C-alpha cells in the first residue's frame, strides 16, 4: 500500500500532516532546529505575543507535579515587533518549506488583542493563521477571564474578525467548552484549539507557600490528556469548524486519540520540553497508526470513534 495521505486543513490552514506544536512549549521554532528539521511538522504555533513586550511573572515559574508540570510564565514575550525582528526571517523560511506558521496572539483587553492582530497583519506575512489566546491562566486580566464565558470570548473575536482575512484559531480555556465554542463559531472563528493548561494549585506543605510565585498556575502534561480528549469530543460534536487537540500528547497513540475524538490536528506541548525530539517521533508513530488502521487518508479517521 502507498503511504497514506496525512495532509489536513485546519480552518484554511493547510498542514502537510496533523502535527502542530502548543504555544509556549515551542519558543519560535528555531530553538528545535538543533534536534531535527522543524519543517517536517505540519505546523508550529509560536509563543503568545502581545503588541508590546511583556516581562512575565517572577520566579519560580515552574513546579513539577504528578504526570505534569505547572507553570506561571505569565506570557513573557518580546512583542510582535520583537518576534518579527528576532525570528521573522526564520519563520518565513519555514513557511516557504511548507510548514504552516501559526502565530499566537496575547492581550489583556479587547483593545490589546486588536493592536496585536494589526501588527501581525502589518509585519508577519509568514503567518498562515493567528491563534487568539483567550485562556492564559497566568495573567491578571484578559486570558482566562475573557475566555471562560461565551460572551467574553465572543467579544474578542467579534472585534478581531473584521481586521484580518487570515484564519483565526481560538485557544480555549477548559471551561464551558460547548457554549464557548458555539459562541466563537458564530463570531466567525475558523478553528478552535482545545484546551489550554488547566488552572491549578500546588502548595509546599512544609513552608505553607505556593510552589510558584503566584497562588495558582497552569497545569500541563499527561495528567490532563483524558480531560482534553473529552472536551475535544464535546466541541467537535457541537460545532462545524475544525478542532486542534491540545493536552498531554506524549505519543502517536495520544495524538490518534484526539483525532478519533474529532480533532483535525494535534499540538504537542510539554513533551517538547522534556524530550526535544518528541514531535517528529509522535508524527511517525501517528503515520504508523494510520497505516495500521488500513485507511489511505488520515481525514477518514477524524471523529471515527465508536462507542
Amino acid at each position, binding site marked *: 500500500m502507498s503511504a497514506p495521505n496525512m495532509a489536513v486543513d485546519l480552518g484554511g490552514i493547510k498542514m502537510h500532516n496533523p502535527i502542530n506544536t502548543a504555544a*509556549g*512549549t*515551542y*519558543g519560535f521554532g*528555531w*530553538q*528545535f*532546529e*538543533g*534536534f531535527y528539521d522543524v519543517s517536517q511538522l505540519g505546523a508550529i504555533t509560536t*509563543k503568545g505575543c502581545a503588541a508590546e*513586550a511583556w*516581562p*512575565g511573572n517572577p*520566579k*519560580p*515559574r*515552574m*513546579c*513539577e507535579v*504528578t*504526570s*505534569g*508540570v505547572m*507553570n506561571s*510564565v505569565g506570557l*513573557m514575550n518580546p512583542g510582535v515587533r520583537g518576534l518579527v525582528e*528576532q*525570528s521573522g*526571517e*526564520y519563520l518565513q*523560511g519555514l513557511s516557504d518549506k511548507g510548514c504552516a506558521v501559526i502565530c499566537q496572539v496575547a492581550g489583556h483587553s479587547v483593545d490589546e488583542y486588536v493592536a496585536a492582530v494589526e501588527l501581525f497583519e502589518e509585519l508577519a506575512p509568514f503567518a498562515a493563521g493567528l491563534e487568539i489566546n483567550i485562556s492564559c491562566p497566568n495573567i491578571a486580566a484578559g486570558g482566562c477571564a475573557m475566555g471562560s464565558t461565551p460572551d467574553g470570548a465572543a467579544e474578542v473575536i467579534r472585534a478581531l474578525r473584521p481586521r484580518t482575512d487570515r484564519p483565526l484559531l481560538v485557544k480555549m480555556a477548559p471551561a464551558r467548552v460547548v457554549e464557548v465554542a458555539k459562541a466563537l463559531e458564530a463570531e466567525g472563528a475558523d478553528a478552535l484549539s482545545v484546551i489550554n493548561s488547566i488552572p491549578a494549585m500546588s502548595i509546599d506543605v512544609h513552608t505553607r507557600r505556593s510552589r510558584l510565585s503566584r497562588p495558582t498556575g497552569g497545569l500541563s*502534561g*499527561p495528567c490532563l490528556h483524558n480531560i482534553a480528549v473529552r472536551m475535544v469530543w464535546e466541541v467537535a460534536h457541537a460545532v462545524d469548524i475544525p478542532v486542534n487537540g491540545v493536552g498531554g500528547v506524549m505519543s502517536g497513540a495520544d495524538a490518534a486519540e484526539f483525532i478519533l475524538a474529532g480533532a483535525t490536528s494535534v499540538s504537542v506541548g*510539554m513533551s*517538547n*520540553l*522534556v*524530550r*526535544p*525530539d518528541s514531535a517528529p517521533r509522535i508524527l511517525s508513530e501517528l503515520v504508523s497508526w494510520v497505516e495500521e488502521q488500513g485507511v489511505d487518508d488520515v481525514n477518514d479517521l477524524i471523529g471515527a470513534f465508536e462507542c
Partner: protein
Amino acid sequence: MPTPSAARIHEFEVVSNTPVAEGIWSLVMRAPKLAEGLSSGQFMSIAVPGDATQLVRVPLSFSKADPVKGTVETEYAVVGDGTRRLSLMRPGDTSDVLGPGGHGWRLESHPRRVLLVAGGIGITPIVSAARWLAREGVEFDAIVGTKTVNTLWGFDELMSVGVQHVVITSDDGTAGDQGFTTDALEPALAGGEYDLVLTCGPEVMMHKVADICAAVGVACEVSMERMMTCGFGACATCVVPTRSGNVGACMGGPVFDAKEVVW
C-alpha cells in the same frame, strides 16, 4: 536565525555513583560526545529513571569532563525525589542526558589571579572552574563554605589541581572558620591580588559576594540556579532578571556577569 542551543540528547551509562559526603553523591557517567562538548560552567539535564510520573529532567553542573575517557563527573545533593532516584542508579544503568547547556564561565577579563567562592553544593562547577584555570595557567585561590564538616566536599580536588590557598568556612565551626564564605571574602579581597571572582552557591550568598566585589571594583561571575523545564531555551521558565531584561538561565546563563544581574 538566532543561534539554537548546542545541546543534544546523549545516551549515557553509569560508571560509578557513590556518596562522598553527607547527602552528597558523586556520579561518573560515560557519554563521550558530551564529555567532548562541555565547557566549564555549562550544565546538563539528566532524564532520571524510576518514576514514570516524573518527567522533568534534573539539571546539574559538572566538576570534570574527560574527553579521553569519555566520562563526565558531577556531585549532587540529594534534596528531593529526582535526586533521590538519581542516587539509586547503579554502574551499568543507562538513561539519557541533554547537554551541553547554556553559557559557562566567561573569563572575559583575562584575569591574572582568580578567587573561587563556593557555597554548599555550588562547589561542583567551582571544581570544574579550578581545573580549567589550572589548564589555562591562571593562578587561583578558593573559599569553600559548608554547613558542617560532614557535608564538606571538594577540598582534596581543589588541592590536586593546584589551588594555592583554600579557606574553609562552616556554619557550625566544625570545619575551618566558623561563619559564612562572605565573612572570609572581604579580608581576602582587601589585598588587591584578585581581578576576578567566580561564585556558585545559594542565591543570597552570591548576591552578597556580588555586592562585596562591586564595592571593591573586582569583576565577578555568578552561576545562577532556576527551575528549568526544557534546558534549551524553549519555555521561559528559567529567567533571571538582568539590566537588559529577563534572560533565560539555560541559554544566557547559568553563568552571568554579576553586574548584569538585577537581584
